[in-house]
């Protein structure tokens, strides 16, 4: 026998799945919404996305090479996703230096400080976004209105988003209801907002891509959306003048983006189906609470980060149904 055999215990075959494959599917799923944002916000969206992705890649490379002195982890594509998701959560007229700071916080503090992919307790892109939101609140909450394929970048025209209006209505300014865009515009994405969150339709297309490629399961997005729909629907039924139709909630702000792409981040979400559902319900509940009763118009980022913090506990409490358990 000339060959040098390998010896390991079983199993001896693998289905061929890799981290890269999953990450690539997430990127594919983000593409429709990304392209739509280029259409809606024009040049600004391209500059912000490009800057964000490139700086995320740069910081990941820099940190692994010079600080951690480990082999590069750029190949796993997770930095690309962080970059796109960070950009998706920014207005399209944000100055470049702020984007770079956001990327540094996202990669440096959000991910690498904990030991890289797999060890971060919080969604890195959201850490970056929330950091920017708290540091530069004015810039982070002035959203350009859609202007076809706009070529203006910093000086784009800005306006109120549907969520601002919803907040105003709930605050008693029922006149703001007239300014709400139609549900059709909301669904297609012809509204103001962060880069990636505008088109509900294309985000749902992304969701279908993720489901079909078996990258994620339905549990988290469906439970988040369901909770938000039920809670806002109840409030709407109680007082339809102050509280808007739940469809407005589902289609506006970062809810779709968050539910489909941010909350489902592998590393920071629970491991068991039951845990995922509870996690989703928690995010949905917190989002509605912050939207209606908080000082920020949008609560998705905070809701997800808060639930990220609870994930280890959820993992401890929600065990999968063991085989043979019920018979006991």
């Amino acid at each position: 026998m000339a060959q040098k055999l390998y010896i390991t215990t079983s199993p001896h075959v693998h289905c061929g799945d890799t981290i890269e494959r999953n990450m690539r599917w997430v990127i594919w799923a983000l593409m429709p919404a990304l392209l739509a944002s280029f259409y809606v916000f024009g040049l600004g969206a391209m500059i912000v996305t490009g800057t964000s992705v490139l700086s995320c890649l740069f910081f990941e490379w820099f940190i692994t090479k010079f600080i951690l002195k480990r082999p590069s982890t750029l190949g796993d594509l997770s930095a690309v996703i962080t970059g796109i998701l960070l950009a998706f959560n920014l207005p399209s007229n944000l100055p470049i230096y702020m984007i770079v700071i956001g990327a540094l916080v996202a990669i440096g503090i959000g991910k690498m400080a904990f030991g890289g992919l797999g060890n971060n307790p919080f969604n890195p892109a959201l850490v970056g976004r929330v950091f920017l939101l708290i540091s530069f609140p004015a810039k982070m909450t002035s959203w350009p209105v859609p202007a076809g394929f706009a070529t203006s970048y910093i000086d784009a025209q800005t306006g109120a988003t549907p969520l601002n209006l919803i907040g105003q209505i709930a605050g008693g300014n029922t006149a703001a209801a007239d300014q709400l865009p139609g549900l059709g515009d909301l669904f297609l994405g012809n509204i103001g907002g962060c880069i990636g969150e505008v088109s509900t339709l294309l985000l749902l297309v992304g969701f279908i891509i993720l489901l079909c490629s078996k990258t994620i399961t339905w549990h988290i997005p469906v439970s988040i959306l369901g909770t938000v729909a039920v809670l806002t629907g109840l409030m709407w039924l109680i007082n339809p003048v102050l509280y808007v139709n739940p469809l407005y909630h589902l289609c506006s702000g970062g809810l779709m983006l968050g539910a489909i792409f941010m909350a489902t981040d592998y590393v920071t979400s629970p491991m068991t189906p039951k845990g995922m559902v509870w996690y989703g319900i928690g995010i949905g509940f917190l989002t509605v609470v912050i939207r209606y009763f908080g000082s920020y118009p949008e609560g998705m980022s905070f809701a997800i980060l808060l639930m990220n913090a609870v994930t280890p506990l959820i993992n401890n409490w929600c065990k999968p149904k063991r085989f043979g358990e019920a018979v006991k």
Partner: protein
Amino acid sequence: MTFILTAVLVLGVTGLVLGLVLYAVSRKFKVEEDPRVGQITELLPGANCGGCGFPGCAAFAAACVKADSMDGLKCTVCKSEVMQQIADITGHTVEVGVEKIAVVRCNGSCQNRPRPRTYDGARSCAVAAMMNGGETGCFFGCLGCGDCVKACKFDAITMDPETGLPVVDQDKCTACGACAKACPRHIIELRNKNKLDRRVYVSCVNQDKGPVAKKACDAACIGCGKCVKACPFEAITLENNLAYIDFEKCRLCRKCVDECPQHSIMAVNFPPKREPAAQPQVEAPVTEAAPVTQETESTENN
């Protein structure tokens, strides 16, 4: 003015009340601790290696204070003076034990032991040992995944990349026994440290019959029994095709070293022999130089 006064008063009173509560609670739930426990803990190394059999140094200290005598209580890491100090604190007497050191009893380096297979599973000796013989034809020897290195709290064991075998740093080794426990093949043994760190031991644990063992490894003990006959002190026993030197009986005469046809008996930290060499004695330095490179180097320091 009244505004400031109210603030100061409210905060002051709150602070006072909370302070009183803290005081009351600390009085009520006070744990009486023998001050000697603290003293002993300070003497101990604080590595929580578990060599003493207790979960940590503090637990060992508490056990020392509680115990009626120091029998069976021994910090494997501490020098005997430290144990004496501990005994002074507790008021017991302590027997001065013999200092020990971890000895790796395998010389199956890449050269000596061909590796016809590649182990590709989890990098853990415990996992590899559960499955089968590992990469080599020897079912007893070192697996080379470094569980002992991971177990060592004192950085005293490293893997030699050239031989693929662990090397014990005799200056750092505290004989806590963690490596010996971690080794699934029970290759590592705690042996007497002896004067000038001189040791003679069989560097093999292969219990296969001679031809099988020899085929698997050039340095394997084949159980020929020559060393047993050569030993003037009856320190060597032969069991399951394997010679073993009892370190309590061995007087370090090194007669067995020259007898061993497989050079599997190691003599470390001895000065080079003086008398003009006969045939087998020439080969003796070869065995010395073999696995424990660090130990032989330090011979020069002695």
